[in-house]
């Protein structure tokens, strides 16, 4: 090996590097390459680690939300959603979910911050710019417009199946009297859903604004049967028909509009996502009202019972309004004992609550009156009428102009034989009654 190496050494041109040098050089090159790779890898790792740390350190924090201490359900939901955002600070879905919860619960300002972040992370999603724009309404249509325009543009690209982006944009534009662009967007909405009554209401208003009264009437006629638009459509039809000289139709539409309840809001799928998440007390009370208006008293009671149970299980102070609502609801459903329990619970929380006292007075008076008709024990009946009178007095102490409480007090006192005081309260009830309400007058006549 040595000979060969030596021989080969001899044969090598002198200019070539010596093998020992070559080995050293080669080793050096390998080492150098290794070092470079290591350095680069180190740099890369350091950069990645730095980037990761930098990203974590500079990750946007979810907004602070001033949730009231007596709404533990909302507080928990908000904290959970904020926690998810902290875990996944670069997830549009997490930010969007927090935004939706906040929007649904009425924290529009904080929701807008979340939607803005969600849009930065996912710029192709329609709902983020849409909800950003929506949360600026109705107060600031100028600020809402750029977001709504972006949403409508994205909806056009993704062939969205909801009319909401165009409809909302068109309505804001109509309000701002940018009629050409409004019409364009109403028509785009109509292309997506040709049966949407809000589109026709909008087109009708637009035509009326331009003085195209016949066209306006045609559009409004298509909107006058939907509960989403009927009241406004009939009110505008009254005016449009009047201008067209059709006085009879104008009068009919005017009467119909006056008799109709206010229109429901049009179905906005993006906003509905927010409202579905809403768990705050105000929204629960709102839903209770809606259910009661729909005649769904049992569902309303269930919601109120859930609210009472959830606050109780969290050791938070209960809300007297929930018990008052429950009491009223149970009276409607004929559960007098349950109602009495609920109303007494309300009074333990809020001893001066007028509605609770009044409902209890009414409940106790009616129960006693029924027992009297059935021939109850006079002494016991007197006690019950006195209890009703006491609650009526407490209601009057909080609200001296409550005609119904004066009426019940007068009637209860009459049953108790206190005729003079009964007369005074019935006279007061007559004075305070709404025009046309003759119940107090009739009770007073009977007393006389």
């Amino acid at each position, binding site marked *: 090996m040595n000979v060969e190496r030596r021989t080969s050494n001899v044969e090598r041109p002198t200019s070539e590097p010596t093998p020992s040098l070559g080995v050293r050089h080669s080793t050096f090159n390998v080492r150098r390459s290794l070092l*470079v790779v290591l350095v680069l890898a180190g*740099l890369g790792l350091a950069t990645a680690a730095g980037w990761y740390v930098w990203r974590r350190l500079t990750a946007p924090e979810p907004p602070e939300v001033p949730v*009231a*201490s007596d709404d533990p359900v909302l507080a928990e939901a908000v904290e959970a959603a904020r926690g998810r955002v902290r875990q996944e600070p670069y997830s549009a879905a997490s930010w969007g979910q927090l935004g939706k919860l906040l929007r649904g619960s009425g924290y529009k300002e904080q929701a807008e911050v979340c939607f803005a972040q969600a849009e930065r992370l996912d710029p192709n999603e329609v709902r983020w710019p849409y909800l950003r724009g929506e949360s600026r309404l109705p107060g600031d249509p100028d600020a809402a417009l750029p977001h709504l325009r972006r949403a409508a543009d994205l909806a056009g690209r993704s062939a969205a199946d909801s009319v909401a982006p165009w409809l909302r944009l068109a309505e804001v534009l109509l309000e701002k009297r940018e009629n050409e662009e409004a019409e364009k967007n109403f028509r785009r909405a109509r292309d997506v859903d040709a049966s949407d009554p809000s589109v026709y209401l909008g087109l009708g208003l637009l035509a009326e604004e331009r003085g195209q009264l016949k066209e306006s009437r045609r559009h409004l006629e298509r909107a006058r049967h939907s509960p989403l638009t009927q009241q*406004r459509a009939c009110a505008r039809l009254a005016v449009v028909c009047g201008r067209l000289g059709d006085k009879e139709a104008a*009068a009919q539409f005017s009467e119909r509009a006056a008799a109709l309840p206010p229109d429901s809001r049009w179905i906005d799928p993006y906003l509905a996502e927010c409202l579905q998440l809403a768990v705050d007390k*105000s929204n629960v009370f709102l839903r209770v009202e809606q259910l009661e208006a729909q005649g769904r008293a049992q569902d309303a009671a269930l919601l109120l019972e859930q609210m009472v149970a959830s606050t109780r299980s969290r050791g938070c102070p209960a809300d*007297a309004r929930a018990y008052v609502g429950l009491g009223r609801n149970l009276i409607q459903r004929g559960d007098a004992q349950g109602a009495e329990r609920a109303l007494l619970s309300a009074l333990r929380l809020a001893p001066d609550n007028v509605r609770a006292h009044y409902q209890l007075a009414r409940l106790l008076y009616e129960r006693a009156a029924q027992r009297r008709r059935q021939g109850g024990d006079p002494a016991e009946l007197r006690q019950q009428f006195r209890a009703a009178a006491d609650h009526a007095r407490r209601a009057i102490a909080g*609200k001296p102009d409550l005609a119904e409480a004066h009426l019940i007090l007068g009637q209860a006192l009459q049953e108790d034989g206190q005729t003079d005081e009964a007369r005074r309260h019935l006279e007061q009830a007559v004075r305070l009654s*709404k025009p046309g309400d003759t119940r107090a007058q009739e009770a007073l006549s009977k007393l006389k």
Partner: protein
Amino acid sequence: MKPWRLIGWCLPVAVAAGLLVWLCRPQPSTPPPAEDTPLGPPWFADVTDAWGLSFVHDAGPVGHYFMPQALGSGAALFDFDGDGLLDIYLVQNGGPKGAKNRLFRQERSSGNIRFVDVSAGSGLDLAGYGMGVAIGDVNNDGRPDVLVTEYGAIHLFLNQGQGKFVEVTKEAGLDNPAWGTSAAFFDYDKDGWLDLVVVNYVDYDPTWPCTPGGKPEYCAPKTFPGRVSRLFRNLGAREGVRFKDVTLEGGLGKLAGPGLGVLCADFNGDGWPDILIANDGQPNRLWINQKGKAFKDEAILRGIAYNRLGQAEAGMGVALADVDGDGRFDPFVTHLTEETHTLWLQESLGAFTDRTAAVGLKGPHWRGTGFGTVLEDFDHDGWPDIAVVNGRIARASAMMNADLGPHWGLYAERNQLFANDPGPRRGTRASGATRSRGYPGFRDVSRDNRDFCGVPNVARGLCCGDLDGDGGLDLLVTTAGGRARLYRNVVPQRGHWLIVRAIDPGLNRDAYGAQVSVRVGDKTYRRLINPASSYLCSNDARAHFGLGSADHVDEIEVLWPDGKREPFPRGRRADQAIVLRRGEGKR
């Protein structure tokens, strides 16, 4: 590898990265133009101290969120002592144990104006949850009487002369055990006696808590059912003042609503005065007079129940003027910050169209929850301008004016002024094809008026009248829990003017409901004699005309409330206040 070589490689990378970061650094934003930079001369100067008006509104203790305290109180400008100078009456809201309402007499010496407190012993110094004031001579004795609305009551005071008033509410048969707000005197049955309409708000329950967002707050009106407004017919005062409650037979009892503002005028040109009531969050009511027998709501039919998008808005204050010079009166109603204050043009007789956007009122410099409002010609160019006073009814997220304290400072907003520009009309009218002119154009001049508009306040009432006798209309602003302020009209180079008081000597009082028309060349200006407008307020009952460059008027005509027209053909020089007595013109 030598360290210097490593450095040699890394350095350019670092420099390049640094350069990139530097290039991408956030650019310092160009400072926005100062929002409040005035562009023109101010129209009003605060003279509250200079004229000696010392009044702080007592709204009662804060913290309980007692709703009436957030919505009061009003004021009146009227000459209670008949000396020809406008005096001031201001209402308190602190409850029966709170501060008393105050009466200030105007005194002048050497051209200086002072308002002197003459409340004590006047009879008007009552305490309560006071809301509004209406002024009218209910017994036709030539002296203006005073009606005060409260949460839970109303009070009628007869003017005995010599600065003394006596309460006659019970004897007069007046009773309104509800939350009364604005009120107005008008002769709806044309019998010569002033009748009374009292607007009621909601069936409020002070024990019901409202906690939007979990914090205690003043309740929204929708929390409680609305109340019916009450109509009282004046039976005549031959044997003492007597009113009869005709709410039910008069029709007003048929529809309840959360009423705040009221204005009585002939809205359909049939010669009978009608009633416009602004409801808070519900459709307005336009009660059309059925020839003195009853009233029928025709607000929807006549286009004034809703805005142009068919939405009911939160109506507060009401004003009325012929803003486009077509001889018909156009109503203006103030609304919430999230809404817009709305102007309806009466484009054909008795038909109203919301033209807020068309006249340029849709994009003001700032928004506010409007209460009191005045539609009058402040710069005497012949076109009525708009003043609106604002103040929130729900807390703002940030302190707006710390000087008002930690409570009211969160409800403060800036007032607004809009100039009705006499220049070219805007656009082309879509309806009313016979007209070639476009819409009137309003310009927001709020930024020019630091005194009146620059300081956020919780304003409620706004009264208007020529307090200093210089022809320019001055303003009185009331605030919830704060000072009442006086603003003197200081418009430079105002045009000529004329102030007309119309008196019917047969009735021995101002002819409420009369329309005064002034002709200058081929232009006719029309005004209504009616002090009750704005919100909770009573204004100077005289008609005020801005005449531009005209230094005289060619003819004046009065359409008296009973429908008789009386021209006063003699030309008159401008820049004076005149009194027209029925029968002294040309029959």
